[in-house]
């Protein structure tokens, strides 16, 4: 029997009595690893020095990894659904860890393009597959609490950045006398460590047996009523519900990334007394808000519902940013609370969206549908920083200083959140009684925005 056959979905079906609470740590093992991507900036200055290149040339490594993440999540989702989580997690582990090892070679040889190929391309594929690989499985094990289960996993993506930031910083200081000489060994150490942790997750994961339902859960009583519909990713993207949720995610992420990307200079421009060190503390605080929001808000969506929770993310988020615009410059506490709340909603938006998709399209191919939806993340990753940077720069050229320079861009953030809030209001369950074929036909014939 080949190794790949050992990883097949059929061979990962859980035996009777298997404890479903073993699935969250399996998912966390993957997400804690790939969350490293958000700590890549730790290597930025040493890489610039090592290659004698511009900051932009090194920044391409991160941008490429994120772009490939979006593409691989979008295109490899159906493959992942067919082959099961274990094979997907192993592929993710091999690609992500392989990316580090190839990049170590590139750094040792002084070839930046090899780092693009390693961390950017190979690592990016590992990121995309890894990000979506536990989602379907978690939702099928926890149909009664999808928000909690995916919140736990996606919280790991935020937590992974904490761990990698602290560990990478230490590796760069201890593996060689100079950080530039420590990059390649640090990449090898991280690559091997992540290979171990991700393989552990792949070994732990199991899919539920056909017809599985946890005690006390009756799919027929599920208020979404779409469990049995088995909507595929191809069918889902023909529905206006998919694109409304795309807009919801896009606007929420654009607002969050816009603030996150400018967090350190922004707080220093708002408050003269905040220096670079205190600003770094503020960035750390936002990271904690981001991580906790993923778990707390996503879990609460199991009780209050997905649409109300997104209404809170977008509506209360808009009010929080408005408060920062109006009185944030006069109170550090208001500024920190307002932006911290917005970033917690940003994290919550990421973590809750798989459960939102499950409510709308059922759990059959929710991982693949989630993969397609992540294109909203890629688009927001470009739009968010652009909005803040372009508007703030133009204000500065016009003579605005301090908090005033951020006012127009923050108003645009409020507008984005308002657009997302309205889009969320229009999200309705798919029409009852429609067959799979009907869904495809109906949404080819009807314009977007028609009632579902």
């Amino acid at each position, binding site marked *: 029997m080949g190794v790949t056959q050992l990883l097949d979905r059929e061979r990962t079906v859980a035996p009777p009595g*298997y*404890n479903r609470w073993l699935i969250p740590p399996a998912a966390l*093992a993957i997400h804690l690893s790939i969350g490293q991507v958000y700590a890549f900036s730790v290597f930025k200055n040493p890489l610039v020095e090592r290659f004698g290149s511009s900051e932009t040339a090194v920044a391409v490594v991160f941008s490429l990894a994120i772009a490939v993440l979006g593409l691989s999540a979008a295109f490899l989702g159906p493959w992942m659904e067919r082959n099961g989580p274990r094979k997907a997690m192993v592929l993710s582990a091999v690609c992500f860890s392989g990316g580090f090892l190839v990049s170590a070679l590139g750094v040792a040889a002084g070839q930046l393009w090899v780092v693009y190929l390693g961390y950017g391309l190979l690592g990016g594929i590992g990121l995309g597959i890894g990000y979506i690989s536990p989602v379907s499985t978690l939702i099928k094990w926890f149909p009664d609490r999808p928000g909690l289960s995916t919140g736990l996993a996606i919280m790991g993506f935020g*937590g992974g950045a904490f*761990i*990698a930031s602290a560990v990478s910083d230490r590796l760069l200081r201890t593996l060689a006398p100079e950080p530039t000489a420590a990059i390649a060994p640090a990449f090898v150490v991280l690559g091997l460590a992540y290979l171990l942790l991700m393989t552990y997750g792949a070994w732990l994961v199991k899919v539920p047996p056909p017809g599985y339902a946890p*005690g006390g859960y009756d799919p027929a009583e599920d208020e979404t009523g779409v469990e049995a519909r088995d909507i595929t990713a191809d069918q889902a993207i023909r529905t206006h519900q998919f694109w409304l949720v795309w807009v919801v995610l896009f606007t929420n992420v654009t607002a969050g990334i816009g603030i996150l990307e400018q967090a350190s200079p922004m707080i220093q421009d708002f408050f003269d007394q905040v220096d670079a060190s*205190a600003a770094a503390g503020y960035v*750390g605080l936002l990271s904690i808000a981001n*991580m906790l929001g993923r778990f707390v808000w996503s879990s609460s969506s199991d009780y209050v519902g997905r649409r109300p929770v997104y209404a809170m993310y977008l509506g209360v988020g808009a009010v929080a940013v408005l408060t920062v615009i109006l009185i944030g410059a006069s109170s550090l506490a208001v500024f920190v609370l307002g932006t911290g709340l917005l970033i917690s909603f940003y994290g919550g938006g990421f973590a809750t969206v798989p459960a939102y998709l499950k409510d709308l399209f059922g759990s059959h191919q929710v991982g693949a549908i989630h993969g397609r939806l992540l294109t909203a993340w890629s688009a927001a990753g470009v739009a968010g920083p652009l909005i803040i940077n372009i508007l703030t720069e133009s204000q500065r050229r016009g003579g605005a200083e301090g908090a005033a320079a951020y006012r127009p861009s923050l108003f645009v953030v409020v507008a984005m959140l308002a657009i997302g809030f309205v889009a969320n209001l229009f999200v309705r369950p798919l029409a009852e009684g429609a067959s799979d074929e009907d869904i495809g036909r109906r949404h080819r014939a009807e314009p977007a925005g028609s009632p579902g």
Partner: protein
Amino acid sequence: MSDRTDPPGRRSTGKLIVSYTIVGVPLLYGLVATAIKASQLFT
């Protein structure tokens, strides 16, 4: 429909403890390191 979430036996309890420790310890380490960094905002 069967309930597969039976009360975990000794073997599954051990597995649960090991698995949550493996992912929990690094997460706690990262969280504490970040919290220490975050405290700089107030000092």
